[in-house]
């Protein structure tokens, strides 16, 4: 396939959290608001006057000082973020909208917070006088009580602090405007992503992963022109005449902002056609519907609780339904199997991976490759062996089924 025009530019944007577009937005007077988790609605951080930056720590392989603070026994992602923060890599942030949605990232964000307590000295990791870190309590369920609670929390801990600290307009009109922009990003990403559903897809999982990531880490209004152009380019993009993959897979699991991991899988012959992991597009790029009779904030609160497939969600029907949703995704994207990858020390996904591995194979007939990985995949040799074996097993299954 012909190279995408902006792919190298996108790849470069992913080299640093403080990338060119972030710098440009800052220079234009916008406030940079960091976050880590899907449960922090990025759309609220993209209100006029500020922009969201989902935190990554690309190329962080040796988080030594962070390991002193968080120990070597919490996930590499949290430690990498901490290390990058300690290195000054997030000094561009004006605020961190924090969530206690997983322990490791929570602890990282607590280190960023200026607590002004006698009991523990603040570290002032983010060298920015304006910086503040605010926590929001995120529900574990998606019932009416949770919607109300989440709405209240978002108002008190996201909107009001943004307004108080930076004078951000948090009116319903401003939220509607942000939703509109957000939905355009969603539409474009989905349009680009839908090419993965083709029999011979015209976009690779790696390319899509890069595009999805830039939409998370760059100011929306600055990345949108590039996304529009890429979506246009995709309309005429021709696939290679000979399929250069041996099977198609859904990649599911925990935090993953490493496109090289997708590249590694694809290098073994499995085309990643669907990305249902933290930082993936399956949930985060579902457009937000603003319903009549409900405030935009209420709609946003409902949206994020209804769309999440996070194993943190506890209701029985949710726990069970998300297995089926994963199987449905495999069907929708014509995938031959599922790779479930959990980050080492990620407790949510360690368990979810176990149960998915059994249920998807047993009850839905889907081949599953279950792996544990690091944030930065230094053990690529071992993983490559696992993926190659998986691809072969899928091929053998196809032969046995006479496909």
């Amino acid at each position, binding site marked *: 396939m012909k190279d995408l025009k902006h792919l190298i530019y996108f790849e470069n944007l992913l080299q640093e959290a403080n990338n060119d577009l972030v710098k440009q937005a800052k220079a234009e007077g916008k406030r940079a608001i960091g976050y880590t988790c899907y449960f922090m609605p990025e759309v609220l951080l993209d209100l006029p006057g500020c922009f969201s930056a989902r935190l990554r720590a690309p190329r962080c392989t040796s988080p030594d000082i962070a390991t002193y603070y968080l120990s070597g026994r919490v996930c590499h992602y949290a430690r990498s973020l901490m290390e990058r923060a300690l290195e000054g890599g997030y000094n561009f942030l004006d605020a961190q909208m924090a969530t206690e949605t997983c322990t490791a990232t929570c602890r990282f964000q607590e280190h960023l917070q200026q607590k002004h307590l006698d009991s523990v000295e603040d570290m002032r990791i983010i060298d920015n006088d304006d910086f503040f870190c605010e926590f929001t309590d995120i529900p574990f369920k998606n*019932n009416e009580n949770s919607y109300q609670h989440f709405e209240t929390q978002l108002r008190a801990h996201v909107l009001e602090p943004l307004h108080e600290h930076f004078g951000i307009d948090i009116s319903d009109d401003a939220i509607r405007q942000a939703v509109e922009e957000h939905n355009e990003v969603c539409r474009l990403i989905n349009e680009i992503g839908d090419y993965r559903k083709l029999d011979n897809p015209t976009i690779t999982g790696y390319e899509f992963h890069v595009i999805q990531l830039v939409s998370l880490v760059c100011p929306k209004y600055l990345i949108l022109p590039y996304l529009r152009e890429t979506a246009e380019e995709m309309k005429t993009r021709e696939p290679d005449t000979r399929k250069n993959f041996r099977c198609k897979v859904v990649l599911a699991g925990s935090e993953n902002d490493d496109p090289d991991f997708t590249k590694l899988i694809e290098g073994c012959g499995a085309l990643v056609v669907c990305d249902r992991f933290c930082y993936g597009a399956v949930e985060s790029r579902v457009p937000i519907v603003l319903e009549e009779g409900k405030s935009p904030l209420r709609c946003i609160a409902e949206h994020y609780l209804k769309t999440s497939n996070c194993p943190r969600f506890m*209701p*029985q029907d949710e726990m*069970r339904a998300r297995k089926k949703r994963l199987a449905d995704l495999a069907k929708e994207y014509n995938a031959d199997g599922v790779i479930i990858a959990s980050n080492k020390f990620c407790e949510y996904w360690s368990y979810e991976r176990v149960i998915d591995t059994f249920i998807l194979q047993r009850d839905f007939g889907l081949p599953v490759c279950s792996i544990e990985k690091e944030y930065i995949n230094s053990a690529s040799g071992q993983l490559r062996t696992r993926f190659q074996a998986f691809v072969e097993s899928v091929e053998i299954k196809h032969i046995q089924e006479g496909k």
Partner: protein
Amino acid sequence: MCKKLGKFLLKFLAIFVAANAVLFVVFFFDLDGKLLFNVVEPFLKDHYDKMERKDTLKSPYDIDKFPKYKYD
């Protein structure tokens, strides 16, 4: 009569003292612990190890078996 009662009391006392002496030996030399550690636990462990158990991985996992427990 008195002699009989005295004999009974002596016998009772002897049994009482002997029982307490045995109890003391068991207590002091941790004989209960030794019996449990060396005999009872290995026997029970062996029993539990050999016990036929349900293969829980074959348990059903019906997606729609239970309703949403919501009381809004």
